[in-house]
């Protein structure tokens, strides 16, 4: 949790300190949004997921007992919410337009501007569970054991799912390698 200690924040939330939820939101919002966007492929839906996630966190946190890490628990709410939203939503992924300037990428990128879109589409087309596993491992850098906790499935299932997802991406992006 960066500079914050989970236990301190949790204790503060549970005794009703008003700043604690703000601390939590400030720290986890980018992570929740990132995972939600990559799973839903839609920034608007991802924003909804963020809001819904923190509403649930606010409701449940005072009664929460640490059976897992706080971050794992918040991820679990967010990922489930994102999968549900994905199922509910009929909206097509809306390309981001009218944004402020994009965040520059750090690595030297190929000149073909369509490559990022191809990757984005290939990931977006993965089945929901495969996408969730792939996003959490590849983009969020989460350990497979933690993903298993977040998704509430066996570790073996997570391993197999990650392989299926990567195999599909390898197939769809063959010409770009």
């Amino acid at each position, binding site marked *: 949790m960066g500079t914050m200690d989970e236990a301190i924040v949790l204790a503060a939330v549970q005794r009703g300190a008003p*700043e604690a939820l703000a601390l939590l939101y400030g720290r986890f919002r*980018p992570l929740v949004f990132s995972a939600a*966007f990559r799973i839903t492929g839609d920034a608007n839906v991802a924003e909804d997921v963020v809001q819904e996630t923190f509403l649930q966190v606010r409701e449940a946190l005072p009664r929460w007992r640490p059976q897992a890490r706080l971050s794992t628990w918040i991820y679990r709410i967010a990922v489930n919410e994102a999968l549900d939203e994905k199922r509910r939503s009929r909206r097509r992924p809306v390309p981001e337009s009218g*944004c402020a300037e994009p965040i520059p990428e750090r690595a030297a990128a190929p000149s073909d501007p369509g490559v990022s879109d191809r990757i984005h589409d290939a990931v977006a087309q993965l089945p929901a569970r495969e996408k969730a596993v792939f996003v959490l491992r590849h983009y969020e850098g989460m350990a497979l054991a933690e993903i298993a906790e977040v998704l509430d499935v066996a570790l073996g299932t997570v*391993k197999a799912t*990650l392989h299926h997802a990567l195999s599909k991406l390898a197939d769809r992006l063959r010409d770009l390698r």
Partner: protein
Amino acid sequence: MTCARYQEWATLSLYGELEPGEERALEAHLRECGACREVREALAGTVRLLKRRSAPLPGARRAWRRWAAAAALLLGAAVARFAGRTESQAPPEPVRTAAAPLPTTALPGILETEDRLCALMAGTDPFLALEATESLGRAGTRRSTPALRAALGRPVTRLAAFRALRARGELDLARDVVPALGDPTLRRDAAAILTARRTAAALAALFAAAVRGDETCLAACRSFPASVAGPFLAEAAGREDGRGTAIGLLLSTDGDDVREVLVRLARADGWIRAEALARAAAAREARSDRFLVLALADAELGTSARDALADVPVRRLRAPLQAALREDRLRAPLAAFLQDRAGEEAARDLLAGLLGDTSLRPAAARALLAHADLRAVEPLLLAGDDLEALDALPAAVRRREIARALRSPRLRAGAVAAVSAADASVWRDLVPLLRVESLRAPVAAALSRSGATRAIPFLIPLVSPEGRDVREALVALAGVDAGETADAWNRWWNDRHLNP
């Protein structure tokens, strides 16, 4: 294993999720299987591509807009510009102002950003205020110190500002840290700072908070070295305010020196004595148990300690007692305590360990034997000393043990010496030993002591002018002296039995 499984392992390997053994097995398989090698290359190429061209997050752009003023991003950009790096390069290392203060005239970009961060920190948006404070803590200069001090007054920024000032070395012990012990948000950090100081003044501040009931500070007090804690707590125990806390700490702080301090205090002050013993007896904690053991062994505190431990089983103190019994100065008084409590198995176990000590053996053996604990028998018989301690055994048990020992070559010398008037029935076990030349004299003496007249016919053939011991035994048993030869004693025996 199938190729499909190895291909799954190839994916896991790319993400560093294979065990070393699995990794080796995969490599071995890939050396032999071209199809799997091809799949692994495809998977690896895909991972490389995805890492190279990670699609930007639209939401991140929104977040960028939304958090455009957020401190971390602003400051990061400013530092990058100052460092002359392009935005495509890796971000700069955080600037550590505490270690190397930045030359303020050379950094307009940073200073401008720092001013904006200060404004955000004082602003109404709590998220931005917090982020700004944390950013200033990571990379600000002394220019923002007054703003951070002001941020100490806001609940949302208090902790981050405190840590930022700490990182810069700008916290004043008396003005900032000690008062922070009264603030639940800052208490843990403040206690950690004071604990690291290891001074009496720091301990005094933590102690004062501990007296007010703060557990964090109480725990911090325990970690001070005995050289600091001992003198401070000794003085604190003499004051009305907080003396109970001081005694508690003297019982629980690391280091035996501190417990010795408490023993000295308890000798001089009846209230401290009663309080310390009662707390230690109730504490059930190794350090306070050590105090109890020291008190038990102390000439002035021993009686009070025994009273305090009247309801505490010895087995609770087994480990500290065992350790203390290895110390010469404590052994004798603790042995006396254990003798009093010899009704308890744990006390007897410890007493049995003292049977090798010649000075403590008789008392320890008596205490053990009085509770029919036979572990004392063998050491006594082997040593051949203090055999009267066996008198503590019930008579029947004593005779059985001596008879058993007489049949053991290792123990029989001691057993022979142990025979007394109460042991007439063991004569049957003694008589065969008369054939052993080296034992004849003591066995004869033992038969004499036992009063076993039925042994007389076995002694008579052994009488000779040279063997006085046998003759003396016969005289004692028969009540007459028939002479210095076996023939003379045979005549006496026949006369007695033919003409009773």
